[in-house]
């Protein structure tokens, strides 16, 4: 009995080695994932049936009291011989994994094989297989919430089939108690242990698969992150080219195409001799994907609809990328063989599609927000202060009588001023020279209104550098001096506007000799709109916001009070970078 046990363990070891190799094959993994349907169940029954047959062959033959045959059980045995089969291991696994149908099916295959081999107790040997399969399948229902039965439970379940086997033997062959005595315990031990080990192995495979899915998610995240710089690209062709080469580099694909609704924007990888950019004919599946905004999978050549006879692709995944609920791009992963598309690839493709869509949406929202804010600020700036406008008109009305020449001049200045303000809404950057003209027009009008109270001076280089600046940034600074700094001075007010070159920067300084900023406002005035404050306003804040958002943090306003009294507001813009940006806008 001891030898028998050891021998059975050895044989089972052999069987488990085969099983281990089986679980390493890619096909096996797919066996674990797919949904069960009748056709697949039959396939699985067949596979496990074969595995059961292997179990039988790995068994031993006993002959009365001695072990008759050490070698594998290949052919039929003599009438007095008895086959100790290990097929039950396979059948129990089949039942536990695939349910009663697969279990019974596999059992029938293994059972018939055993019966054909013959020997003592062939009917019991044969019958026990489908019976076990059926029972194991039913047992599995109690564990339906667990994907794989834990090894300890499997060990427990594995005790019963050999016992059932022995019972059947005793029922059909009442005089076989001698055999039962000899093989009963070894079979129970070896079978249950083998089943436990096998379930453990399957558990490992499943865990591996889960890891793979997690890896795929992580990969999708990394790729989506890497894709960000390309997505920021304004030109769709450059975006597509960057995206396709990135995907090609990161994923094991035959080729990648990126298309928009009309044409192929980029194609990287195999088949670039006939899958070229600017192609405008898509397979109908691609249209379907774009229509339904859902991922589509082509698994045959006919679905890819490539007319080229040497087209290397057999399968493809088509991933629509949406932006604001509109399909913007279609990414196509090409594969040379249909089975290269594993569940992991599908998960990855789906995830990538969603991540890239999300990123595009976020980018669009950000860009939109920026544009809206900028437009809002410019609109605010464009609103001509009604006091300024009507007081100026009043001035002109008086000047008609007092000094007609001057009336004409001021009318022209007001026209300049207003024309600039009207254009403000449509331009986010203007040449500095235009801005200076605007400031000059404003200054002339103010000067004419308050000839005795104010002196405004403007210092700028002979030739104003060719830089661009957010429109109406200097004028509000001057206005701020007059409205707030010089609010209480009835005479002797001075405002200086200085524009000067400093290395590669251009400095703009506006200062007055008024009352300066209240100490508590000095820090806030550029950082938040001071709408609640009685002397406050949003002028400096708006200017600062536009300077920062259009020219960067370095261009922000610096506000300070001068030691001799009055305030100084100053900002600087880089000269070179500016020229480039100006052209783009």
């Amino acid at each position, binding site marked *: 009995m001891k030898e028998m046990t050891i021998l059975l363990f050895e044989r089972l070891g052999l069987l488990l080695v085969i099983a281990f190799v089986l679980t390493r094959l890619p096909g096996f993994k797919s066996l674990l994932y797919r949904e069960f349907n009748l056709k697949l169940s039959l396939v699985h029954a067949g596979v496990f049936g074969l595995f059961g047959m292997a179990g039988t062959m790995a068994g031993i033959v006993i002959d009365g009291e001695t072990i008759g045959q050490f070698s594998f059980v290949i052919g039929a045995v003599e009438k007095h011989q008895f086959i100790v089969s290990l097929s039950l291991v396979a059948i129990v696994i089949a039942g536990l994994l695939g349910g009663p149908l697969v279990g019974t099916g596999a059992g029938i295959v293994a059972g018939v094989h055993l019966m054909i081999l013959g020997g003592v107790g062939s009917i019991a040997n044969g019958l026990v297989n489908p019976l076990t399969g059926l029972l194991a399948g039913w047992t599995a229902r109690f564990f339906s919430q667990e994907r794989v039965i834990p090894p300890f439970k499997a060990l427990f379940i594995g005790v019963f089939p050999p016992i059932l086997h022995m019972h059947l033997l005793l029922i059909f062959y009442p005089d076989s108690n001698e055999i039962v005595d000899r093989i009963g315990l070894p079979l129970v031990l070896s079978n249950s242990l083998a089943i436990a080990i096998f379930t453990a192995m399957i558990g490992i495979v499943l865990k591996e698969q889960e890891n793979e899915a997690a890896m795929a998610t992580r990969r999708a995240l990394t790729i989506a992150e890497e894709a960000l710089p390309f997505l920021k690209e304004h030109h769709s062709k450059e975006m597509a080219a960057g995206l396709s080469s990135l995907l090609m580099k990161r994923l094991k694909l035959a080729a990648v195409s990126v298309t928009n609704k009309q044409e192929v924007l980029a194609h990287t990888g195999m088949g670039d001799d006939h899958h070229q950019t600017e192609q405008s004919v898509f397979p109908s599946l691609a249209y379907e994907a774009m229509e339904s905004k859902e991922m589509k999978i082509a698994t045959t050549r006919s679905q890819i609809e490539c007319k080229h006879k040497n087209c290397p692709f057999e399968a493809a995944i088509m991933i629509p990328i949406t932006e604001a609920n509109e399909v913007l791009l279609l990414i196509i992963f090409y594969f040379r063989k249909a089975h290269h598309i594993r569940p992991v690839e599908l998960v990855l493709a789906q995830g990538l599609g969603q991540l890239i869509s999300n990123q595009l949406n976020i980018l669009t929202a950000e860009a939109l927000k920026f544009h809206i804010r900028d437009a809002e600020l410019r609109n605010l700036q464009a609103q001509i202060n009604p006091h300024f406008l009507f007081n100026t008109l009043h001035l002109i009305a008086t000047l008609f009588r007092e000094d007609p020449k001057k009336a004409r001049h001021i009318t022209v200045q007001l026209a300049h001023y207003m024309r600039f303000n009207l254009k403000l809404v449509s331009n986010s950057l203007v040449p500095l020279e235009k801005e200076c003209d605007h400031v000059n027009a404003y200054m002339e009008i103010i000067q004419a209104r*308050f000839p005795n109270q104010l002196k405004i001076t403007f210092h700028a280089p002979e030739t104003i550098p060719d830089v661009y600046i957010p429109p109406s940034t200097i004028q509000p600074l001057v206005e701020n001096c007059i409205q707030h700094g010089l609010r209480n001075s009835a005479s002797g007010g001075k405002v200086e506007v200085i524009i000067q070159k400093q290395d590669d920067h251009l400095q703009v300084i506006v200062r007055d000799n008024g009352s300066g900023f209240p100490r508590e406002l000095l820090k806030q005035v550029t950082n938040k709109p001071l709408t609640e404050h009685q002397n406050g306003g949003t002028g400096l804040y708006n200017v600062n916001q536009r300077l920062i958002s259009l020219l960067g943090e370095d261009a922000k306003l610096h506000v300070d009070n001068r030691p001799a009294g009055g305030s100084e507001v100053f900002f600087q813009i880089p000269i070179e970078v500016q020229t480039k940006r100006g052209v783009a806008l």
Partner: protein
Amino acid sequence: MKIHAMIVEDEQMARKELMYLLTEEEDVALCPSAETGEQMLQLYGEYEPDVIFLDIHMPGISGIEAANHLMNQFVHYPPLFIVTSAYDEYALAAFDMEAVDYLLKPFDELRFQKAMKRLRNQLLQRERKLMEPYVSNTKSGPAKLLIDDGERTAVLSPDMIYYAVPHKRMLEIHTKDRVISSRMTLQELEKKLYGFPFFRPHRSYLVNLNYIKEITPWFNGTSNITLKDMEHIQIPVSRTARKMLFKMFENNH
């Protein structure tokens, strides 16, 4: 009698515009203009114009603040205001200070004429209202007044009173031969004497018109009243009051 007008405006050209428009009006006499609210307060005491053309937005205190100041100071005969502004945002404030009109810059000539018409009407109405007690000589109320001086109650008939003036928180009521001090206010006395020929030539004097002997001009359009039997007493008359005083005598005599 001419309407005395003062311009309060910080913009030189805007002042010139108003000056031009006002000199076109024959019944308007211009006082010197003020460039700030503070200056207006200074000049007002000196010239006491009937109407002030007031700009709101000026350096220093705003037109509204300056006007409130004036009205608190000259409760008895506050000037009338016409607000001039480039925008309509001060309309409510103007309503609050009972401005005659609100003129938007640049001025529309027709609108300006309308404002002047309104001004004339209001000045007339105001005069009438102020003179009502004296013009309608049909007296009512008691023929005798009871004046409590703290110790006893004096019985006076209105025609015994020459004039009244507050002095050290008390009201001095002067009759021909004695002075009665009472805790009542000038306003209270004026109310009691409603319908009798009493007049306030100055915010702190109430005078019986029947005892006025002569009116002598002082400076800047103000005058002094000398009373019968009390030639040593000079009672100041504000410029506005002087005008009314003359009108009253013209109407009655």
